[in-house]
């Protein structure tokens, strides 16, 4: 690269080379060895006159410097003659620099045809003529470099230069195509937009600026672009005053509107901001890249829709909403649908009186409530239940309802409802949408399924499917098998609405009037509950457990105080056809209705194994454990002297504080807070109990985030003695507890044979130990006597009873000491130095026995063959904590509202998509700032610029400004995939709140 770029043997034509840029180009090429045709008509800058002086002068200059050049005085419009000059003088041609140009500036309204024609002829036709004449020569030799000279005036426009701008930008188009046509023949075509002090710019730029804009600052770009080593082609550069930059096209990501539906100017206006948003812009470099988004859109066929219903969005949209209810909700609902009108009717009392225990039952139609309440809650905020359903609540009419019970509802539960669009029908001018809701319990089992069919006024007309005519269930002609007549109370709607349907139409007389009703009407779903209750009473003996499903069409309004007459026809053992009328006016209010029963009561999957669960042992309390620790300190005098640390324990759920003062002397245990603790450990009461009873490893609690340690972390390592608490001490403190239940199985019962069996298992679990340790160990145990060999000479090694043929090292000790050593209670070195273990043979090899101390206790259990007979079912304490409910959901919902109110919020995130993936409990939110209105949506699909993984609790802390983003990230509690630069912006959300 450091060697000079030479042009020896190359022939270059420079048009307009008598002055300024052209002259400088010519001098530059000649100085580097090229033979140059110096073309100049010798005219004025406005295209007047003609003279040979300018070209001759430059040729003389070149020759004086030792270069080769000839002059040509033709107009560029006679391009073939210029090319001929090159052929005549030098026999070939390699480089064409189209530089010649003139000006005829004039504002457009004063511009004459002559002004236009002259400029287009010289710049555009001229460049065409010269290049066109040169083209066959360059093609034939398979080599060529062509430069077009355009101008900033052409690229950006300039007042008074309409003719010049047009001609100049035309050259860019010419170059782009020539670059493609010439590529295969090694002809490279580039365009430069120079700004230099020349005769053309003297008229528009001040003299001091022109001085800085020397042509010498432009020519070097050509010196590289025209060189044979340069691969650049089809490019455009701005150059001048020592600056060189490359230009390219930039295109916004734009907006694709689905094909297959009306596409109007209003659509364009609506998406205008996105169309012009250059975030993540693309840089198409050729026609194919230009076409890419168009082709992509052509391949995405729309399902159709209009401004009310966007089927593409809605069909792919899912909303997940959590809710919970308890017996109070259930009883209130039952009262709302007229249950237990006679408080002495024991059967109906079971719907409303939770103290009935097992006999308390949930009216099955309550299954529609959590889901429809969730929908209503969204409507209250002016939101749609699903993305893509953009109609207002006021257009809705509840047409049909279907509810299916998958397992009998519990008296209280936490449910997760997932909403989807099942179908949308175009009943032009209206529409019908069917929303399907699946409700699952916390075990993930489906509890209920609902379908809500809604009639949407004026939302049809997109030319879609009209849908099925609709199943009609005509009641049989015969007399009904059962009839129940029941009067609603005058205040029935007021009672029912407390279950969640806040619509004023059912409570506010003025509001009802505005809708053309004399008084507030009863909720359709209230009547729905009545109907279900009637069927259960008539056919199931008021036992709702076999109730499977109900389907109705809401045919007319009911006013509170009217009497409902439900007529029922049993069609089969599991199906009943229903019709309900208002007695007072004999209007049918519920039709097309059917109720189905299960043949047998369905059983919840989770309930099946649970029945066999034995009651858990109550286990020791933290207080009892600290009592045991106090006893331990008494028995092990001087622990304070040894450990020299004050430990503060802060236990949670239930909360209690304890500290172990092991600063000096024998140490002490106290309840409360220490004046000065060295280390503070925060953990759940249950985890402390698990830890102190040896069931949980303190390190695992810590690493797993269940124990928080502050202060001197290292000091917490000194707590190991807790794990060695003698169970007897615990018994002592627990006092009355039955000793038998607690006694740990005697570890000593295992015997050395079991240990050797466990070693055998260990070798299986760690293949290759023989190859690694390369030693045969002979053990001679006494009292009782036995001989064992651990052969780790090669391969995986093996263990057997007896005597080895050739042992590297022999270890003699008491059976008891071996047991102590292998269970980690005695240090082999101490046994050796204390004379309790005798070692002969290769003494050093005995050092390789360290692995014995790392024997997994599980292997020992396995070896005992009693693994199944674990002393007790492991205390479920640690896992018994109830799964957390989302704390951040409420904050996120508040954010949704804030964002809806303020479209300028989060301006810093403009154009970005951020996803929040929550854990414990799981949820996913998409913060969409790509459009004009930022939004936060639950469970919205799609790509994001950054994905944040975070626990619900941590997000709550972040949004409450209790935890800075940076710390959460550094601690690994906030995980960032994608653009990490967006992470600090999460703080904006907290600010917004």
């Amino acid at each position, binding site marked *: 690269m450091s060697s000079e770029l030479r042009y020896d043997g190359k022939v270059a034509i420079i048009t307009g080379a008598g002055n300024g840029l052209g002259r400088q180009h010519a001098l530059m090429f000649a100085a580097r060895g090229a033979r140059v045709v110096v073309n100049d008509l010798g005219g004025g800058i406005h295209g007047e006159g003609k003279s040979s002086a300018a070209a001759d002068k430059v040729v003389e200059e070149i020759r004086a410097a030792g270069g080769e050049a000839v002059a040509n005085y033709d107009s560029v419009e006679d391009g073939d003659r210029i090319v001929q000059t090159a052929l005549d003088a030098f026999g070939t041609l390699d480089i064409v620099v189209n530089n010649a140009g003139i000006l005829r500036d004039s504002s457009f309204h004063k511009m004459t045809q002559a002004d236009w024609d002259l400029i287009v002829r010289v710049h555009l036709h001229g460049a065409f003529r010269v290049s066109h004449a040169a083209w066959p020569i360059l093609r034939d030799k398979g080599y060529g470099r062509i430069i077009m000279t355009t101008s900033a005036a052409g690229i950006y426009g300039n007042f008074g230069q309409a003719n010049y701008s047009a001609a100049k930008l035309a050259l860019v188009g010419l170059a782009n195509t020539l670059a493609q046509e010439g590529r295969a023949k090694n002809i490279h075509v580039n365009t430069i937009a120079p700004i230099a002090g020349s005769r053309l710019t003297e008229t528009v730029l001040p003299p001091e600026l022109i001085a800085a804009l020397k042509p010498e600052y432009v020519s070097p770009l050509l010196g590289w672009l025209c060189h044979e080593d340069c691969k650049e082609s089809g490019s455009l550069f701005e150059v001048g005053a020592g600056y060189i930059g490359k230009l390219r096209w930039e295109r916004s990501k734009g907006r694709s509107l689905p094909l297959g539906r009306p596409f109007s100017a209003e659509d364009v206006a609506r998406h205008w901001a996105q169309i012009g948003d250059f975030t993540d812009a693309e840089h198409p470099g050729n026609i194919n890249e230009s076409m890419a988004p168009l082709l992509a859109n052509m391949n995405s066929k729309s399902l159709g829709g209009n401004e009310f219903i966007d089927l593409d969005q809605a069909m792919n949209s899912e909303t997940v909403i959590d809710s919970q209810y308890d017996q109070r909700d259930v009883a209130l609902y039952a009262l709302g649908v007229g249950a237990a009108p006679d408080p002495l009717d024991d059967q109906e009392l079971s719907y409303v009186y939770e103290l009935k225990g097992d006999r308390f039952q949930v009216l099955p139609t309550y299954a529609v409530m959590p889901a429809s309440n969730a929908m209503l809650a969204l409507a209250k905020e002016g939101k749609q239940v699903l993305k893509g359903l953009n109609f207002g609540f006021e257009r809705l009419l509840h047409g049909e309802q279907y509810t299916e019970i998958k397992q009998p509802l519990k008296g209280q539960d936490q449910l997760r409802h997932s909403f989807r669009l099942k179908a949308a029908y175009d009943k032009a001018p209206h529409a019908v949408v069917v929303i399907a809701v699946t409700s699952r319990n916390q075990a993930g089992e489906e509890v209920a399924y609902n379908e809500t069919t809604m009639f949407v006024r004026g939302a049809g007309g997109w030319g879609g499917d009209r849908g099925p005519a609709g199943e009609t269930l005509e009641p049989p002609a015969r007399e009904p098998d059962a009839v129940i007549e029941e009067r609603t109370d005058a205040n029935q709607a007021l009672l029912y609405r407390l279950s969640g349907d806040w619509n004023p139409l059912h409570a506010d007389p003025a509001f009802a009037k505005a809708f053309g009703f004399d008084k507030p009407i009863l909720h359709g779903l209230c009547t729905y509950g009545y109907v279900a209750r009637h069927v259960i009473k008539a056919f199931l003996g008021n036992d709702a457990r076999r109730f499977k499903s109900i389907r109705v069409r809401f045919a007319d309004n009911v006013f509170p105080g009217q009497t409902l007459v439900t007529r029922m026809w049993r069609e089969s053992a599991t199906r009943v056809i229903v019709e309900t009328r208002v007695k007072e006016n004999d209007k049918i209010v519920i039709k097309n209705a059917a109720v189905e029963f299960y043949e047998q009561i369905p059983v919840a999957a989770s309930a099946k194994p649970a029945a066999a669960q034995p009651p858990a042992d109550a286990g020791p309390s933290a207080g009892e454990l600290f009592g045991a620790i106090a006893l331990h300190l008494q028995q092990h005098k001087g622990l304070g002297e040894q450990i020299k640390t004050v430990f503060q324990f802060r236990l949670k759920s239930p909360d209690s504080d304890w500290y172990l003062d092991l600063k000096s002397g024998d140490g002490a245990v106290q309840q409360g807070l220490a004046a000065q603790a060295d280390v503070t450990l925060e953990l759940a009461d249950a985890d402390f109990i698990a830890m102190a009873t040896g069931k949980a490893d303190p390190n695992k609690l810590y690493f797993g*985030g269940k124990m928080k340690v502050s202060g*001197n*972390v290292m000091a917490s390592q000194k707590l190991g003695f807790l794990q060695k608490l003698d169970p007897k001490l615990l018994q002592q403190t627990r006092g009355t507890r039955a000793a038998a239940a607690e006694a740990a199985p005697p570890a000593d019962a295992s015997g050395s044979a079991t240990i050797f069996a466990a070693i055998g298992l260990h070798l299986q679990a760690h293949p290759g130990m023989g190859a690694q340790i390369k030693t045969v160990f002979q053990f001679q145990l006494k009292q009782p006597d036995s001989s064992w060999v651990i052969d780790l000479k090669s391969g995986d090694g093996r263990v057997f009873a007896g005597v080895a043929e050739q042992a590297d090292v022999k270890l003699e000790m008491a059976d008891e000491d071996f047991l102590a050593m292998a269970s980690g209670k005695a240090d082999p070195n101490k046994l050796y130095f204390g004379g309790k273990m005798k070692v002969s043979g290769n003494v050093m090899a005995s050092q390789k026995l360290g692995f014995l101390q790392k024997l997994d206790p599980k292997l020992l259990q396995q070896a005992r063959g009693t693994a199944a007979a674990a002393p007790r079912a492991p205390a479920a304490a640690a896992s018994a904590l109830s799964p957390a409910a989302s704390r951040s959901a409420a904050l996120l919902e508040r954010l949704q509202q804030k964002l809806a109110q303020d479209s300028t919020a989060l301006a810093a995130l403009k154009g970005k998509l951020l996803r929040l993936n929550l854990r414990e409990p799981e949820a996913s939110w998409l913060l969409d700032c790509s459009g004009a209105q930022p939004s936060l949506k639950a469970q919205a699909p799609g790509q994001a610029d950054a994905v944040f993984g975070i626990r619900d609790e941590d997000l709550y802390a972040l949004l409450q400004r209790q935890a800075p983003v*940076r710390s959460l*990230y550094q601690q690994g509690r906030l995980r960032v995939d994608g*653009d*990490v*630069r967006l992470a600090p912006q999460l703080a904006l959300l907290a600010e917004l709140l």
Partner: protein
Amino acid sequence: MKRRVNVIGVGMTRFAKPGASAEYYEMAREAGQIALRDAGIAYEEVQQAYVGYVYGDSTCGQRAVYELGLTGIPVVNVNNNCSTGSTALWLARQAVASGAAECVLALGFEKMERGALGSKFDDREPPLGPQVQLMNEVQGINSAPPAAQMFGGAGREYRYEHGTRKETFGKIAEKARRHASRNPYALFSQALSLDEIMASEEVFDPLTRFQCCPPTCGAGAAILCSDEFASKHGIAQPVYIAAQAMTTDFASSFSEKSMIKMVGYDMSKAAARQVYEAAGIGPEEVDVVELHDCFTANELLTYEALGLCAEGGAEAFIWDAQNTYGGKVVTNPSGGLLSKGHPLGATGLAQCTELVWQLRGCADARQVDGARIALQHNLGLGGACVVTLYRRD
């Protein structure tokens, strides 16, 4: 008095996985014999030996050197965590430079266990207590390997500060594997794609498995001598040490509550500055570097600490391929710790070996064209950093 110190012989074993290596003294013997042959001298001419290892009881150094001969010379055992090998080198150079000896052996070996580095002495205050304490305050502690948490944490801090892509770290591992594919001494010589690296199991965000150096067994050796000794033995144009510096922690390692500082950024920066000043050579003149890439995050930080790129410029430096053949400077042509392996005591001497080969122009397929100036960086937490600048005229 200060004398010029030449590196006249180098050698190393092929690095091996834990459990698959020879005994430590056997590896040491192999490396030592190669270095002696390379220098063309007999062991009897060696006047002192500095022997580095981390895991092993006292006087393993003698046990190892005795394999080469029993000549009664001073043998010093050296232990300085991951910078052990270069610390032995530093002591050897000091002995020759000061005139205390004419010819000195620097030797390093390690026989490592499988799995992450851990503490061997559980009954006393661990040496990295203050570092762990700081880490606990800044980011807590989890069950990932402690070193990965420390260097990974530094990576997080850098990433948050500079908006760095995760793939940028992965890209370093991709380069390491590519370089190692030409090094017969490397433990992992199979090239990996960026996708494979990013898809490997996450050890500690942002580090994935392939971005962590493996525990390794191996040995390396170097023989250092004075100009007089070299000319007496007819050794022409040897590689020599133009400058060398060792630093330990500054207050900033702990006071700034910064993971980047805690893992030794300022140690590296100060050592590099001292070396550049002493040699009168700037980072832009360096042709080839072996630096301490125990984790990709540390290689990235070290680019900046050594001045190979501007602070904050590492991401561009990496994606513009300035760190490999055809770029500004070739970093870790050997494949580095990431691919070649990291036997703690041997690493500093293996880096030295690679650079001496590079300056002699005998690095075969991984030769950096026209390499004249080479830089070595070896870092240990706890801490110590040794930076060495080599030249061949």
